């Protein structure tokens, strides 16, 4: 099979492209394996295998609630009714020795990347007044720490986020971007409703800004 491909290539009057120099698709590392001759008759089409999730791979939902203590929800003994959580926990598992970082943005950066907050530059926040020009503190989650969505997307998932993000630098969160630390660039097809985290349009508090992302179209 390989031999016949090589032969084809050699006998072509013009070999325009073969091998790794022409990735067909920006998202695939597969080298081009077809033959590009001068005419169609001398050429052989090739398409990369479409990316597919593993057989039977489940949908995945990560839900992160904001500012709740261990003893609030009824599901873990609190006096506040949370029947949905009860139902899911009673048909699933309760992890009782689970930990977060103690604050919002470091937890979110750590969750999304599977790395400690300092390792992904989020020891503090991405807000101007809560970040500093040091590797562990600049609030710029690096591209070397891909998110769960970036990983799942290149494994055949559609990926989507709603609600609060909280790790885009203030300076970047204007209509002029740059957008490389907004959700779409982190492979979270975002969508959404309002900028502020406030549940109503009367919002006014400083740490609740620019956190909401939702968009309808999928990428």
């Amino acid at each position, binding site marked *: 099979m390989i031999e016949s491909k090589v032969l084809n290539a050699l006998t072509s009057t013009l070999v325009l492209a073969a091998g790794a120099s022409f990735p067909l698709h920006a998202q695939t590392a597969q080298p081009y394996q077809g033959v590009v001759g001068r005419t169609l008759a001398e050429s052989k089409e090739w398409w990369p295998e479409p990316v597919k999730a593993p057989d039977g791979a*489940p949908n995945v939902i990560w839900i992160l609630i904001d500012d709740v203590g261990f003893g609030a929800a009824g599901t873990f003994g609190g006096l506040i009714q949370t029947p949905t959580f009860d139902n899911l926990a009673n048909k699933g598992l309760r992890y009782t020795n689970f930990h977060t970082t103690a604050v919002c943005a470091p937890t979110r950066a750590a*969750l999304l990347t599977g790395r400690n907050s*300092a390792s992904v530059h989020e020891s503090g926040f991405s807000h101007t007044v809560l970040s*500093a020009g040091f590797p562990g503190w600049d609030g710029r989650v690096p591209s070397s720490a891909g998110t769960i969505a970036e990983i799942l997307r290149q494994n055949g998932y559609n990926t989507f986020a*709603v609600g609060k993000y909280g790790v885009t630098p203030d300076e970047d969160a204007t209509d002029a971007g740059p957008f490389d630390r907004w959700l779409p660039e982190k492979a979270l097809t975002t969508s959404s409703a309002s900028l502020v985290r406030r549940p109503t349009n009367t919002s006014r508090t400083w740490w609740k800004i620019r956190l909401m992302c939702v968009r309808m179209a999928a990428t």
Partner: protein
Amino acid sequence: MEDQAHVRPDGRHLSDQITDKSISYIDRQKKAAPEKPFFLYYAPGATHAPHQVDRYWCDLYKGKFDKGWDAYREEVFERQKKLGVIPADAKLPERNPDIKAWDKLTPEEQKLYARFMEVYAGYLTYTDFEIGRLVNHLKEIGQLDNTLIFISIGDNGASKEGTLSGDVDRALWDKHLTEAENISYNLKKIGEIGTPAATEGNYPLGWAQAANTPFKFWKSDANSEGGTHNPLIVYWPKGIKEKGGIRTQYSHVIDILPTTLDLVGVQAPEEIRGIKQQPIEGTSLAYSIDDAKAPTRHTVQYYYIFGSRSIYDHGWKAELAYPNSFITGIETPPFDENAWELYNLNEDYTERIDLAKKYPEKLAALKAEFEEQAKSHHLYPYITFDDVWNGRIHRSKDSKSFIDAVKDITKAGENQ
């Protein structure tokens, strides 16, 4: 934001909107590609301040918290033991310093604070309701059985930003009020708690501590379990055999990503779009899904938030608080870098008995380990809340004071 542009909120509750968006997204995607799985990250603003929710939800709790925060802690502590979500030998710590006994409060204070908690409870129940809408929808379209759901109930412990006497609409930079003045101000506005007018709505610290039962202290206290210990639910009917099981293995938020990859059957890539990836630091919990008794694999973890810090190692924990008076207005002793405490969580789940003096060598070893972790994760320099409030970071010649910068951000938010 919508299509990478800022949009104005339309007046509906954000939790309502993001649930609708999620359902719409799932439906559209499944219609186009029924076999293709999706990943959804659902991160509501709830239940962060401002606590705002339709009156229907708050009123479900009318009178339910009149017994107060001390009674709440005791009742919840017993329920937690009965449920098996805390060890049978755990003990409830004393109230945090500066929190008054409920029965020492005036009837007016009790009335005010109970209302704050009714609203908070309504807000959380409403949040659960919205997630219920999402879950029910998955069931209706036949997708629930093969959906893996993680719910972290909290991104940190209960918030202490509501101050000692709660907050209705007073911003960080508003003129400082004494506790008595604040109580009288809030009482005048008791009817606004939970409404859109309550632009800063947050419950008082006594309730935040109760919501953190059985732990001490609060959000942003990286030294304490009250800042860092949250419930986690893992649900996947098709993939998890045991229903209603409890897992006690030590785990951390960085573990969710590798757990997900393991359960889905995907490897972490070496590169993403040509960029070499840093190693994943979390420990997959897949080993514990079918084995309640499996030994913990996540055995060491550092914590640091603007001065407060701790290190966990095989059940031992060394920790250093960063006292500040920013929230309570009550004078605190200056930060003492030598005031480390030591706990054995295997025997003292709620950090009641400081063993620092008893086991100085253990403490020294853990402190050294913390430094190692700090170095290897690029946590240096140790920036503190004091550095933040005094504007010592991210300075340029045009920089404003901390409070002025914060006001600017708020203004920008309103304009968008």
